[in-house]
């Protein structure tokens, strides 16, 4: 494996909400929201642009063959809400990316999670928003139980 490529894995289905619609168009024509894959590789370029931030990476298979992968994100206008910048991911970084594959299983995916070599994670902004909402709901339940 060279540690650089992982096969498609079965992960819980991630259902997109309206807030996750990818910037200027719907998600469904390109990506399969019912499947999730994980791929590891080395970043070659990170473009912090609109309407979609893009990351390109080299993924090496067991035989040593290098395949070019593209990872699509929400737009710069979305990620900047969560403090992302053009420096958030740097060329040369070893990363493991989890995302939704295309319908044709081409070497391209939509970002769901990145794990860096040091184990730190990058997540979509909406995951942070949903965590905050669940915490609000927990606090509300707690306060109503105390009354």
């Amino acid at each position: 494996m060279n540690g650089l490529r992982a096969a498609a894995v079965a992960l819980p289905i991630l259902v997109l909400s309206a807030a996750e619609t990818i910037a200027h168009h719907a998600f469904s024509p390109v990506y399969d929201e019912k499947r999730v894959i994980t791929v590891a590789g080395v970043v070659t370029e990170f473009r912090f642009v609109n309407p979609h931030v893009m990351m390109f990476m080299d993924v090496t298979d067991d035989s040593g063959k290098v395949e070019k992968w593209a990872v699509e994100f929400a737009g710069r206008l979305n990620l900047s809400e969560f403090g992302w910048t053009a420096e958030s991911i740097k060329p040369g970084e070893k990363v493991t990316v989890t995302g939704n594959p295309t319908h044709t299983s081409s070497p391209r995916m939509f970002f769901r999670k990145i794990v860096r070599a040091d184990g730190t994670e990058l997540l979509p902004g909406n995951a942070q928003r949903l965590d905050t909402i669940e915490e609000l709901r927990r606090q509300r339940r707690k306060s109503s139980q105390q009354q």
Partner: protein
Amino acid sequence: MRGRSALLGLVVLACLPVHGRAQTPAAARLEGMWSDPPVTPDGLFCFFACTDAGLARLNALLDNPANDARPFQELQGEAKRFERESLRDLLTPAARQRYPLDPADDPGFLKCEPWGLVRQIFAPHQLEIRQRGTTLELRYGEWDGRRTIHFDGREPGPTPTAMGHSLGRWEGEALVIESSGIAANLIMLPDLQAMGEHSPQMRIVERYTRSKDGAVLHMTAMLTDPQTFREPVVYKKIWRWAPEQHIAPYDACEPPTEFKKAVQR
């Protein structure tokens, strides 16, 4: 001489009726950068736009203790489905025949064609409001879309345009914008997961108010288009005061290299 001109300008400005001016204390309260809504259930639900019926359904689901173990995303999805069905029921028979549009046929996706006004005003992310002389400019992060709000009652041109013709007035501290002359285009019902088409008869009345604490901008928009809706429809939207945000270039749109039509969600 310059002082006299400035004085004359002030006198002229003071004589203009309030509804004919972009520059008022109320305008100053709205001016600046707004962006994604506060992280609350209502904020997330209205990320693009929402209706009162949808919000009521969401809050009923959240208030029901039987749903305490269900994730918010699931409840939001259920309320959104209800909201989409409610909006579909308001479509005219002709509009319903063309609903929903296959997202793969969206020209914004296929050809990088910027949105028309009816989608643009509900775009997520940045909204910058600036006074420009006697007009207001509303600039959106999505597509770097811009529109000019006139306060002089001028008539629209003979040909409908993508961003239409917008006239503003002040009702107390509320900015009210009436738009017409909007070319036929797509409409979100109420987001990109469910789109239809609207006609050039579309008229929109937007009403913007800032919360007392200044942190939130509320907008209600009444959409009237007899070829699309059996009765006027009201959408709501929320932005958060976001002076730290700025609008970045929107210059890297590329048509898709691969896509699939008629994907069932």
